[in-house]
């Protein structure tokens, strides 16, 4: 509840902050720039936070991160190829579309894997393989970048941002993240059962393989769309459920909705901060979430040093 109020306040603040100054100075700026940006921060953050909570529950590991699925890597590769071939200059939406296509390919790969084996461990292995492969392909693209500008654009995109995103991006992201979140929010009781392990969950009548498939599909939709729109925004899916466990308790099903709201709050706050930090160019969102996330993760690591 307190988290929802915080998110609403942050959303209002996000609408009021920008290059044109504080407050609502021009309705066009509000509607064309700040409103879609605010909405995208909520969508991206909510999708990442929720996916992180589901994956941590599914894998029974508080260090699970949506990046493990490999769809973020797929989205990066798709976007990088768009830059590489100069398509971004021809078609403005080529970038998010390329990201979505890349994410879809990566998702198809890991879903095929999950369908074959139906265990959380195999899903992660497939995801790590896809992430490594796409990472290598991105590195190749960077090495053979056609010109320094493309190289700079690719590097900056990979750092993640919501700058200059508009309603077109919202139209692309909203259905994917909403559908993905709907799939994930319904997994609460199954994730609760998985607290006891996959075999025990099966003995409680849970379809474990079906749960793995649904979690993979939902997270791939939400994370893939988030990465296609915003680039690499790390640490959100990892850190938000961990921060919330102290308040909400550790039952995985109880963490889902709070993680969605908390993820939205974190990305909203970070996106407000990047606009407020006075630099020549806006600081990248992914850089800031990493700067916030890494120390929090270290603190968690220290807090849990006694546990397995």
């Amino acid at each position, binding site marked *: 509840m307190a988290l929802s109020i915080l998110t609403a306040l942050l959303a209002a603040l996000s609408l009021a902050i920008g290059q044109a100054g504080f407050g609502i100075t021009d309705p066009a700026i509000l509607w064309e720039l700040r409103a879609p940006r605010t909405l995208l921060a909520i969508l991206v953050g909510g999708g990442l936070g929720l996916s992180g909570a589901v994956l941590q529950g599914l894998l029974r590991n508080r260090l699970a991160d949506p990046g493990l699925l490999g769809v973020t890597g797929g989205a990066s590769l798709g976007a990088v190829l768009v830059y590489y071939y100069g398509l971004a200059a021809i078609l403005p939406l080529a970038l998010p579309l390329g990201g979505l296509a890349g994410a879809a390919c990566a998702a198809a790969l890991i879903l095929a894997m999950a369908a074959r084996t139906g265990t959380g461990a195999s899903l992660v292995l497939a995801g790590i393989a896809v992430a490594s492969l796409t990472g290598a392909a991105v590195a190749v693209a960077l090495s053979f970048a056609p010109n320094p500008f493309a190289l700079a654009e690719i590097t900056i995109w990979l750092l993640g941002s919501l700058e200059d995103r508009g309603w077109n991006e919202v139209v692309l992201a909203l259905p994917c993240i909403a559908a993905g979140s709907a799939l994930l929010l319904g997994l609460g009781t199954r994730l*609760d059962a998985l*607290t*006891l392990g996959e075999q025990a969950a099966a*003995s409680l*009548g849970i379809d474990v393989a079906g749960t793995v498939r649904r979690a993979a599909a939902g997270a791939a939709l939400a994370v893939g769309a988030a990465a296609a729109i915003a680039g690499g925004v790390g640490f959100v899916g990892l850190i938000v459920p961990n921060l919330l466990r102290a308040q909400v*308790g550790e039952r995985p099903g109880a963490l889902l909705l709070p993680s969605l709201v908390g993820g939205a709050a974190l990305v909203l706050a970070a996106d407000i901060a990047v606009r407020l930090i006075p630099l020549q160019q806006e600081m990248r969102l992914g850089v800031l979430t990493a700067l916030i996330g890494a120390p929090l993760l270290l603190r968690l690591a220290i807090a849990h040093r006694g546990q397995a």
Partner: protein
Amino acid sequence: MIAAHAIAVTRGGQRVLDGIDLTVSPGTLTALAGPNGAGKSTLLGVLAGLTTPDGGSVTLDGAAIVAMARAERARRIAWLEQGARAAWGLSVREIAALGRLPHGDAGAGAISAALAACGLEDFAARRIDTLSGGEARRAMLARVLATEAEVLLLDEPTADLDPAQGFALMRVLRAEAAKGRTVLVVLHDLDLASRFADRIVLLADGRIAADGLPGAVMTPEAAGRVFGVRIGSDDLPRVLP
């Protein structure tokens, strides 16, 4: 009544279970014993419907369990795995409540009764990761009891417990059998098996080596044959006076 018919399981070319026929009656506590690798856990998994046998079938009151809906099977057969652990710091009550998932209801009465049966009323709000090994094991048992299943399958629930905790846990299982439930429990502790079981089934190399009343099964001859050790009857586990 749960029954296994000609169960065969092969893993990696190795016969783990070989033609097991076993019927366990309601209202009894049956101990499944035997050396490591005899196939006890595999048999329990097959009876629980978690492992699909390569041959044979399991029936519950004459109906094949593979044909049952997942939730129905889970409502009627509860299974506790060896060394069961919780990945998250759920409260004891939350752990017990997981036993109600097959029913899809809150089942507050069943949960309270299960906690009481396991002596955990005062621990209901405690996180399971703050409990001792014995207390955590009882919380896992409470989860199994909360399902109110007619068949309880438990894989070494007394492993690593001190004698007092082991006795306490077996008394809970005896009480469940007295309520008319079918209790089948894998035990390594032959003393506990002799003391609490109505019937002992000795498994060796995937086959039933001996089956009957504890006094009839736990003979030096059978122990020697099944466990591969030569012991006089004086060396059999003694029960404290």
